[in-house]
């Protein structure tokens, strides 16, 4: 059986963090169809990595190849604009458009406005049918997260990028929405990169995980192997009780 296509990310960038300058230097690969978690403490560079991949933040140097297509090559001066990269991106604050109803958000995301079949399917899959005519301002955090996820999938992306999409939700809601992410990942045969600092989320959702610390990858493998034999030092803040040592 042939191996699924491999994608590669290599980038460097100087970051100016609250703790002073920090160099992001990341190099990793992933295979199509996997759910890859990018895990690490706040300020490690997780979101920047995802934003470079999406083309929202420029890298100082880098090479990004996704399933045979070059998205970034600083040597050859290739920089595919964000809108031409086949991605779905779920932001931490969901970034729903205040002027559009739930259904309109999904319809706006369609590459071909006439092909609306996936909108009905997503509304049904994400249990959004009853909310489809409401605007985001009237939705709860969990409902907004489902809309953001559905909208990101509506355009049929190669890569689904999730930037701590569950961080603003309580534990019950978080568990429920993890099911939606898993369901969408499998149902649409997506390749998903999930940024999180919530370890149980990594263990539950990810096929493989990357541990990012101080802008560098310090471990990469299957979550069970990666975190079972490793002692990590992660600062635990009062609002982040989940980031405990395994």
């Amino acid at each position, binding site marked *: 059986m042939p191996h699924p296509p491999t994608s590669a990310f290599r980038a460097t960038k100087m970051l100016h963090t609250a703790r002073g300058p920090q160099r992001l230097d990341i190099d990793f690969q992933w295979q199509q169809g996997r759910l890859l978690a990018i895990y690490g403490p706040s300020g490690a560079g997780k979101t920047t990595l995802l934003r470079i991949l999406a083309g929202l933040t420029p890298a100082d140097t880098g090479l990004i190849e996704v399933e045979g297509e070059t998205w970034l090559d600083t040597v050859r001066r290739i920089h595919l604009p964000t*809108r*031409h990269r086949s991605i*779905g991106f779920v932001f931490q604050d969901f970034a729903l*458009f*205040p002027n*559009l109803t739930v259904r309109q958000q999904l319809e706006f*995301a369609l590459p071909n406005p006439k092909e609306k079949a996936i909108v009905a399917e997503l509304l049904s899959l994400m249990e959004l049918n009853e909310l489809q005519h409401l605007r985001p*301002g009237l939705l709860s955090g969990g409902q907004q997260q489902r809309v953001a996820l559905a909208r*990101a999938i509506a355009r049929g992306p190669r890569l689904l990028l999730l930037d701590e999409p569950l961080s603003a939700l309580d534990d019950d809601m978080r568990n429920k929405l993890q099911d939606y992410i898993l369901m969408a990942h499998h149902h649409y045969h997506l390749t998903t990169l999930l940024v999180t600092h919530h370890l149980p989320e990594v263990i539950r959702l990810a096929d493989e995980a990357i541990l990012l610390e101080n802008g560098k990858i310090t471990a990469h493998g299957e979550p069970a192997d990666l975190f079972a034999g490793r002692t990590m030092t992660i600062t635990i803040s009062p609002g982040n009780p989940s980031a405990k040592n395994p």
Partner: protein
Amino acid sequence: MIDWQPLWLSLRLAGTTALLLLVIAVPLAYWLAYGRGRWMIAVEAIVSLPMVLPPTVLGFYLLLAFSPSNAFGRFLDHYLDIRLVFTFPGLVVGSLIYSLPFMVNPIVSGFRGLSLHLREASRTLGKSDRTTLIHILLPNIRSSLITGAVLAFAHTLGEFGMVVMIGGGIPGQTRVASIAIYDEVQSINYSLANRYAIILLGLSFFILLLVYFVNHHFTNPKTLP
């Protein structure tokens, strides 16, 4: 008997200016809000200059620029057959410059008040900047657009120093309501001056009422459409 011509001329000038400014101000405000050029601050200062500049100063320089005895005016006259001094089109051009900040600044504030993630989210959905502007950004700054348009309209309605300099107060062509009031006072015809003034006062109050109503409507979540 009141002559309605100056009032009609004022409304026509204000309406034309507000409509044209909407077209000009949106791309300019977009560039000022999201651009990164070295000259951004200088351009922003130039756009806002008419807010602090005495209208007669602006009118004086425009009079010089539009005059056929100077290079720019001569160019317009000879090559494009356009004469801006003492004409209604000249008043429109002057008003566009004079009222520009009243339209641009609210729109810039509107753009800057939106989350940057909205633009980014639209890009990740494969949409161009133009599609994002039309379908996402502009609908979410409706109150800024309406405020800008209404303020530009009202500001143009109240112009005096600039229009008297480049318009000259020619009846039926450039004699707008504010000039008519001045002329009637000069003729010691206070009764007629008062009628023009009352109408402008009522109109200005109604316009401001509209601005506050619109802002209240769009900032109150309960009344979101």
